[in-house]
């Protein structure tokens, strides 16, 4: 099989990319999804708050997915469900397997990576104790409750204050479970403020900052956890241990871009985002392979995921059509003072730069976000690690840059 553009994954990034590749003139667009339905994680995110910036609407995850699927159905994009990509080569040959077709090979002119991210499991944070049943990542519990109709437990402790953990605190409470508390190792919450208010405060669920779970107890089923306060270096403080009985522990301790396929294709990754090194065009270091959404870096908002999907798809269509000049060598965009994460990491002089930045610590004072040596700056009232900052720098301002661009966040 052959295609102009092949999109791997049909979550918000992949759906948007497939539609937009078609709209950008790609003649044959393929969308590959390993599950039996389109939509990715949106299907289980039944809460609202999706598309506020993109559509100026307050959709739930499933509504947002249906809207994108409706747009997809109007195009001639071919999509294959139950189709798992097992390998991707640097020359953009895709090997996929499905129950219907067995093994198939697709030769694609360009590829859009949209595989999303995965939750960090217990083993990635090394909690001591026994290994009983009743320990789930927040997203797995979300799937059980919202799609399969199972309640994972009745007395719940949540470790980590990421958005999925907060959303699940409310969800489990509404379904009749008692959420005893959300414990966060950092001294600020991981999730968005609106989720702290509407998911915890509304239901009187306590949030314990600078706390973590230091032991899991129970033989067959989890019977409780020991929680401890932590010091500024995040080490547990001796003597602060408290036993909290529970039958369920949810982990909401971070997400990691899923780049097994990217690695196989020789795509260079960066430890800053754990995703591919890309330019403002979303092109990776392998020509013709683009990446977007949470496989690039974990975004806070679906609007940003979709935006990167549009950029990647437009350029993938251009690449497939042969309308892609090598141009000037890209310059590096590097994190400076108080910048923990930035995306993309290179600028290739082809387009305006949409830059995403995350601050290293919370600053609840007016800040400047500065691009040195450009002198371009954005003024903001605050900068917090749990809220990505998005801003656009026009191609015109960047055209004379010759060396690396350093991004910093400083108090005003």
């Amino acid at each position, binding site marked *: 099989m052959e295609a102009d553009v092949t999109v791997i994954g049909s979550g918000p990034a992949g759906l948007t990319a497939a539609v937009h590749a078609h709209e950008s003139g790609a003649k044959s667009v393929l969308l590959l999804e390993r599950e039996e339905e389109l939509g990715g994680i949106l299907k289980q995110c039944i809460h*609202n708050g999706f598309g506020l910036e993109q559509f100026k609407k307050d959709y739930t*995850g499933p509504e947002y997915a249906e809207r994108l699927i409706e747009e997809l159905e109007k195009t001639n994009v071919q999509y294959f469900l139950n189709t798992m990509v097992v390998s991707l080569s640097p020359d953009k040959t895709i090997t996929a397997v499905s129950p219907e077709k067995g093994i198939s090979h697709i030769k694609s002119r360009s590829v859009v990576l949209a595989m999303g991210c995965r939750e960090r499991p217990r083993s990635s944070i090394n909690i001591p104790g026994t290994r009983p049943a009743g320990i789930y990542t927040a997203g797995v519990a979300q799937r059980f409750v919202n799609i399969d109709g199972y309640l994972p437990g009745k007395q719940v402790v949540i470790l980590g204050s990421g958005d999925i953990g907060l959303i699940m605190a409310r969800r489990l409470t509404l*379904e009749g479970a008692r959420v005893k508390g959300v414990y966060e190792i950092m001294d600020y919450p991981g999730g*968005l*403020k609106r989720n702290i*208010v509407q998911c915890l405060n509304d239901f009187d669920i306590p949030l314990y900052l600078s706390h973590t779970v230091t032991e899991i107890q129970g033989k067959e089923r989890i019977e409780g956890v020991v929680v401890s306060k932590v010091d500024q270096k995040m080490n547990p403080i001796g003597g602060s241990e408290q036993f909290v009985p529970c039958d369920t522990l949810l982990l909401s301790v971070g997400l990691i871009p899923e780049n097994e396929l990217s690695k196989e294709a020789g795509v260079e990754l960066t430890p800053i985002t754990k995703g591919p090194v890309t330019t403002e065009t979303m092109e990776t270091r392998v020509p013709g392979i683009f990446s977007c959404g949470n496989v690039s870096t974990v975004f806070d908002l679906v609007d940003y995921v979709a935006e990167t999907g549009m950029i990647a798809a437009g350029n993938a269509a251009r690449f497939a059509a042969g309308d892609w000049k090598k141009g000037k060598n890209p310059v590096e965009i590097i994190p400076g003072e108080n910048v923990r994460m930035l995306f993309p990491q290179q600028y290739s002089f082809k387009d305006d730069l949409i830059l995403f930045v995350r601050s290293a610590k919370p600053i609840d004072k007016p800040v400047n976000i500065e691009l040195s040596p450009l002198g371009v700056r954005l003024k903001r009232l*605050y900068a917090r690690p749990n809220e990505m900052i998005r801003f656009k720098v026009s191609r015109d301002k960047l055209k004379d840059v010759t060396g690396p661009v350093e991004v910093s966040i400083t108090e005003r």
Partner: protein
Amino acid sequence: MDVEKKHFTCVICPIGCEIDVELQNGNVVSMEGNKCEKGKEFVLQELEEAMRILTTTVPIKGAKWAMLPVRTDKPIPKRLLSKVIEQLADIELQAPVKMYHVIVKDVAGTDANVVATRNMKKVNHPKDAKKDLISRKEG
């Protein structure tokens, strides 16, 4: 006279102003921390009647999945959230269902409707299909 103090985090925009309010006989006598008028409106609404969108699921038969996601089509009083959940407890739907199909009208007297938030197709014998898949795997 007794002064009652209350604290709010505004959720109108991502800034999330921390707003302190003093009340006397239920009337606002001072408000501090809001950076704009919208924050004031938010607090006054919260004091009068906190309103929230409710999203949850209801069981569905004859579909690929066990649960159908639903929402209220407009915000409802926060104090009625659990009442609406209770009212939905006895409902069981039959596939197919179209997105925005009204499942309960004027739920718990709130004037809001509970509607489906996705399409869900009818599937013939979903359990048999699953069994088939398992036996194929083992075979």
